[in-house]
């Protein structure tokens, strides 16, 4: 038997090896050796991230292929998506160092890295799935450890509460999704994407199955009306975990949804397009409106990320290669912008002893101009201000909508950018205009967090201006 095609799973295997190494090191290392844990974890993961770029650098496709008779599919697109997830995770790792090295989490930092890696493995499988069972297994692998991460600060009530909420919601959504999958299997007689697409026929059973499936994934993506857990979990979870949830977990769910809708349900566009149309319109609008009222910065970014998920959905609605390219590009840009914001939040939170009110940002420009500038760039990018990457990504999503003639949805989304700008500017206002109540002295950020912020800032500025990134994504995209 030839095992060489297992090598198509190179990224998963690499991740698994890193996981095992870190796990063993964490178990057997001395207290002195634990000091180097973060360095080893981050550098190991950086190597893995670079490995993902290898096919492009060498211009070879040794990772492209199918394994297990089509259960697992790897293509240029999935490699790119995994690279995006990798970059985000790497940045989260860099940002988490300061938090992990304080107090009760110090001796458990190994757990953080290993659990995160196992969720990432699940997300890899979600992205690469060629079969609904694989997708489901991937989603479960990603969800359960995430609940552990959410409750990582287990002696903090909020964090524990967030963990419970998250696990209940993910169990529920998995159940709903599995229910839908059973309908689909009943209706179409297969779990393989390709077979289902070939035998796709509309019946009440398949439509119902699709709706349940969408509901299940909608929880992961926190689309309105499946968003109710988001704010509480984001607020309670440790900041680095929130960052991970809002970018990596959401990105993986968006990619999985994209593939399923394009590959399996491509022919029945008429069924899911109106559903997603309404979901997107409501998600963007409600996310924005609720964000305005928030006073806690993490809740604030929870609603902001709900609304951003709505924009991500817009790329799916376009149902074209342009839409796919716009979506992937959007997630790439969103990664840098949102993680920049969370990096700043993590730094400020450490300084203000866990105060995450927006008021904690008052006068940040006086006490730490660099952090304030990064945050300003981040929210400008999220709000879609040129020359930052967010402007380009939003506009390309709009272009893909325009190409399909979805002018009304386009209009709703465009007007929503103004609302979002309003609340993003509230943060700018707090940092630049308002005076801090207590006299915050200037402070320095942790070095590894600083590296992450430099990476994010470079991403925010460069990704939009360097057109070859989008052009590359466009070449490997495909439509319905």
């Amino acid at each position, binding site marked *: 038997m030839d095992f060489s095609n297992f090598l198509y799973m190179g990224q998963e295997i690499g991740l698994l090896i890193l996981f095992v190494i870190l796990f063993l090191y964490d178990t057997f290392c001395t207290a002195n050796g634990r000091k180097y844990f973060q360095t080893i974890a981050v550098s190991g993961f950086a190597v893995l991230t670079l490995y993902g770029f290898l096919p492009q650098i060498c211009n070879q496709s040794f990772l492209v292929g199918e394994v297990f008779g089509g259960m697992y599919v790897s293509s240029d697109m999935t490699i790119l998506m995994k690279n995006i997830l990798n970059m985000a995770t790497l940045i989260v790792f860099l940002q988490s160092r300061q938090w992990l090295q304080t107090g009760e989490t110090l001796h458990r930092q190994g757990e953080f890295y290993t659990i995160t890696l196992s969720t990432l493995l699940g997300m890899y499988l979600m992205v690469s799935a060629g079969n609904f069972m694989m997708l489901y297994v991937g989603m479960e692998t990603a969800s359960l450890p995430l609940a552990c991460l959410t409750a990582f600060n287990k002696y903090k009530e909020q964090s524990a509460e967030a963990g419970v909420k998250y696990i209940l919601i993910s169990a529920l959504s998995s159940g709903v999704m599995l229910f839908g999958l059973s309908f689909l299997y009943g209706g179409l007689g297969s779990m393989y994407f390709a077979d289902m697409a070939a035998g796709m026929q509309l019946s009440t059973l398949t439509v119902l199955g699709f709706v349940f499936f969408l509901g299940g994934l909608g929880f992961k993506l926190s689309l309105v009306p499946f968003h109710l857990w988001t704010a509480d979990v984001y607020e309670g979870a440790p900041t680095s975990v929130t960052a991970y949830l809002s970018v990596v977990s959401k990105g993986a769910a968006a990619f999985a949804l994209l593939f399923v809708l394009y590959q399996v349900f491509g022919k029945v566009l008429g069924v899911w397009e109106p559903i997603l149309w309404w979901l997107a319109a409501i998600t963007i609008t409600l996310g924005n409106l609720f964000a305005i009222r928030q006073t806690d910065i993490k809740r604030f970014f929870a609603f902001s990320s709900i609304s951003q998920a709505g924009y991500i959905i817009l790329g799916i609605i376009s149902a074209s290669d342009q839409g796919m390219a716009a979506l992937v590009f959007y997630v790439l840009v969103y990664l840098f912008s949102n993680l920049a914001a969370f990096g700043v939040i993590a730094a400020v939170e450490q300084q203000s002893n866990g105060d995450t009110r927006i008021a904690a940002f008052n006068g940040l420009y006086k006490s730490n101009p660099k952090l304030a500038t990064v945050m300003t760039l981040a929210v400008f990018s999220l709000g879609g*201000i040129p020359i930052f990457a967010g402007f380009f990504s939003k*506009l390309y999503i709009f*272009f893909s*909508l*325009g190409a399909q003639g979805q002018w009304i949805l386009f209009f709703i989304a465009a007007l929503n950018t*103004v609302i979002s*700008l309003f609340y993003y500017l509230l943060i700018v206002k707090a940092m*630049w*205009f308002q005076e801090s109540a207590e006299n915050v002295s200037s402070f320095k950020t942790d070095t590894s967090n600083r590296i992450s912020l430099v990476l994010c800032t470079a991403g925010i500025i460069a990704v939009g201006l360097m*057109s070859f990134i989008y052009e590359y994504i466009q070449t490997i995209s495909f439509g319905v």
Partner: protein
Amino acid sequence: MNILSLFVLVPILMMIALFFSRDMKTIRTVMVAGASILVILATALTVMFFQERAVSDAEMLFVSSFKWYPSLNISYTVGVDGISVAMLCLSAIIVFTGVFSSWNMPMPKEFFLWYCLLSVGVFGFFISIDLFTMFMFYEVALIPMYLLIGLWGTGRKEYSAMKLTLMLMGGSAFLMVGIVGIYYASGHETMNLIEIAQRHIPIEFQRWLFPITFLGFGVLGALFPFHTWSPDGHASAPTAVSMLHAGVLMKLGGYGCFRVAMYLMPEAAHELGWIFLILTGISVVYGAFSAVVQTDLKYINAYSSVSHCGLVLFALLMMNRTAMTGAIMQMLSHGLMTALFFALIGLIYGRTHTRDIREMGGLMKIMPFAAVCYVIAGLASLGLPGLSGFVAEMTIFVGAFQNTGVFYTAFTVVACCSIVITAVYILRTVGKILYGPIQDKHHIGLPDAAWYEKVSVVVLIIGIAFLGMYPSGASNLIYDSLTPIISKLALL
């Protein structure tokens, strides 16, 4: 390198230099040097433009293009016709004088960094002939306003900054739909304005694309009823920002209406122009009347800007060559004039610490230089022959009366009334604050304009006088450039 790209590059270089500047002296040197280079560039461009125009009859000159996003046909394309050259000259002058008017700013480094970013947007907008880059620069010009007003402004600055930013961004949301719409309606092959103009946008698309595009730009051009950001914004902004905003940024609106909305969608412009004509008619008269009842100098001038910028859109919608020439002249004239006003108001406010006209009087005795300049600005505003306002408004109304039909004539008559109302509020203000007895004893002995303020004011007055005495200089530049749009509008 293309001379046009230098207009964007110079402010960017200024920003980099500012970033490394440590003390006030370096910052001032950087700003004065950079702004002077911009003025020199603008002058050089004008000379080169006339030379090139003599040998070439292309619609746009100095065109250069760089493919940016090939799959979406987005490219960075620059090129100018006479109108853009005129606008670039105006912008360079205002940016230059603005530097001198903000000589003693707190937090100068940050202020000038945002100020330079603002000018990147303004210059970039006028040189672009690609819809995407044009829109991009348009937004680049908007966002620094928030911080400039919020941090360095006066009065209800946070409210005004937010109001201004959101209203203008609302306009740009409309534009975003409009621009993507134009791209797809014209066959999604190009984003280049000139090439789109040669294609035909189907009328059913024009019917909704024209209003949203015109409205999107119109918000920045203070089109009634979307003008409300303007008085608050201008009143709260620091001097140089008011100058740049009223002087140049509001012209982006008029320029965009004409270059994008009307040029690309002439059928809809004919069909729906009347709606906007009514709105601009209201802008003109309402702005003037509102100015009459204000007591804050900046509010008076801001409402007067609403009225004058309304006149620009009004003239554009008359859609004949004379009126449109007048519209562009009015943009130049109003830009210089309003910048002069704001520079002087800033100067007076910096000394008296009040802008309320009821608390001032007899300033002619206290600061004669500033007062005389204020009178000149006022006279230009109410259209005294020999100064720029007269030339511009005269051309506009001559052009407007060329349109036959009761509707046009009636609106022209209404708009003409604004001249009289302008005279009322200008003379009232001038009489109240400059002449008469000294109201406040503390004002006695206040110093007259300092040398840097004089530079700023004198340069602007020279500009106004030049435009007034030698209008054919500007109209030569403008007249021929209007041919493509006039011929497109006349085709129908």
